[in-house]
């Protein structure tokens, strides 16, 4: 499986993260999104006419929507990440996959504005982002009352992976996460999952490793 990838893209990161959590090896090909705008080149549009990243290719299959890639990876890997299969949970997963698009259109765009100088009404983007964060916070708070930490239950699904990147990267777009305690704990729960990988803007939870033992001085290595 080959992922056409950009290291700073939240949507590409969703796919890299899902694959890492599943232990699935992806081969990645870096696309010069910034500054080269290679995703808009004629060559790249032959692969994906929309000119967007990521693109996942597996044999004859070409996927251009990150949520579809999450479904594909999870379905192949035994469906654990798709929920328990009940009508309620299947619908809830779809609900949050759709919600993740709102996060991309608000917090994600605010981030591209503040970081890579994309045009946009930054105040409106941030307002829409805060509204989405408040919805998410309310939902996760109610889930915690029931002892659930993830979006649809006590175990994570592709819905969590679809929503996590643009939420965790909100500060890149000038939207603080300080006011959302349930989002903080949800985010920590995701970052503590075995196999979790970071992207720039999301730091390692260093506390997951014990404080290091002493090593020989640097001089000894020279």
């Amino acid at each position: 499986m080959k992922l056409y990838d950009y290291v700073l893209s939240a949507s590409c990161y969703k796919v890299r993260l899902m694959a890492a959590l599943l232990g699935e090896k992806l081969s990645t090909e870096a696309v010069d999104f910034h500054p080269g705008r290679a995703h808009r080149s004629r060559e790249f549009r032959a692969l994906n006419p929309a000119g967007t990243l990521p693109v996942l290719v597996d044999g004859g299959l070409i996927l251009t929507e990150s949520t579809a890639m999450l479904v594909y990876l999870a379905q192949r890997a035994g469906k654990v990440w798709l929920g328990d299969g009940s009508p309620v949970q299947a619908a809830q997963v779809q609900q949050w996959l759709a919600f993740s698009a709102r996060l991309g259109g608000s917090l994600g765009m605010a981030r591209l504005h503040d970081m890579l100088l994309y045009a946009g009404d930054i105040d409106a983007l941030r307002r829409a982002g805060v509204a989405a964060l408040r919805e998410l916070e309310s939902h996760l708070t109610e889930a915690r009352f029931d002892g659930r930490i993830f979006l649809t239950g006590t175990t994570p699904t592709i819905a969590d992976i679809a929503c996590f990147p643009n939420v965790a990267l909100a500060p890149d777009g000038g939207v603080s996460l300080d006011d959302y305690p349930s989002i903080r704990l949800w985010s920590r729960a995701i970052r503590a999952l075995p196999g979790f990988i970071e992207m720039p803007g999301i730091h390692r939870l260093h506390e997951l490793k014990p404080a290091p033992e002493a090593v020989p001085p640097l001089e000894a290595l020279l």
Partner: protein
Amino acid sequence: MWVANGLSQDLPSGVVMAGNWQGAELAIWRSVSGRLAAWGDRCPHRGMRLSHGFVRGETLSCIYHGWTYGSDGACSKIPAHPTMVPPAAIKAEVYQCVEADGVIWVGPAGPEADLPDLSGMVAVRSVSVLGDVAALTRALPGFVADGALWRGQVGGVSVSLVVQARGAGLGLHALCGAAAHRVAVSRWLDGVVQLVEQEALT
């Protein structure tokens, strides 16, 4: 004075979060053994926010260079110089921090300053709202304010809101009479936030 800075349930062991005491930005954290501390949100080395740091055991470390501080605020380790004992002058700015009835409080506060009695109440959640006390008053008719503590009834359920000045807005730390009502009170609080922000605009 004591300023409410969140709910105990939102700060489990091993977690650090941002706080605020009368405009001063704080890092509030709980050690692995459960010890609570509130410090100025600034590593003395390069000014990085300690609320972005990480908790290992009984210490908080800065995310930038890993400078590590013990519960008294004194720097105990500088990873760039592993064998050096850090000078005593390197110290985080320590605030008073206590918790009572599920609410985290930060001082300086005089010894005579009592915390409000919230015994018997169940923590619901903390929210922030862009608005001032005047807008909150208009949005909460029937609530009675005693200092930072606002009490009222919501659909027959007793609700306490501990109000915190936080940047350009307010933090509302909500508790209610029984765990069974938490969802209802949480949803009511979403409505309060919208109402206060509408009132703040008028």
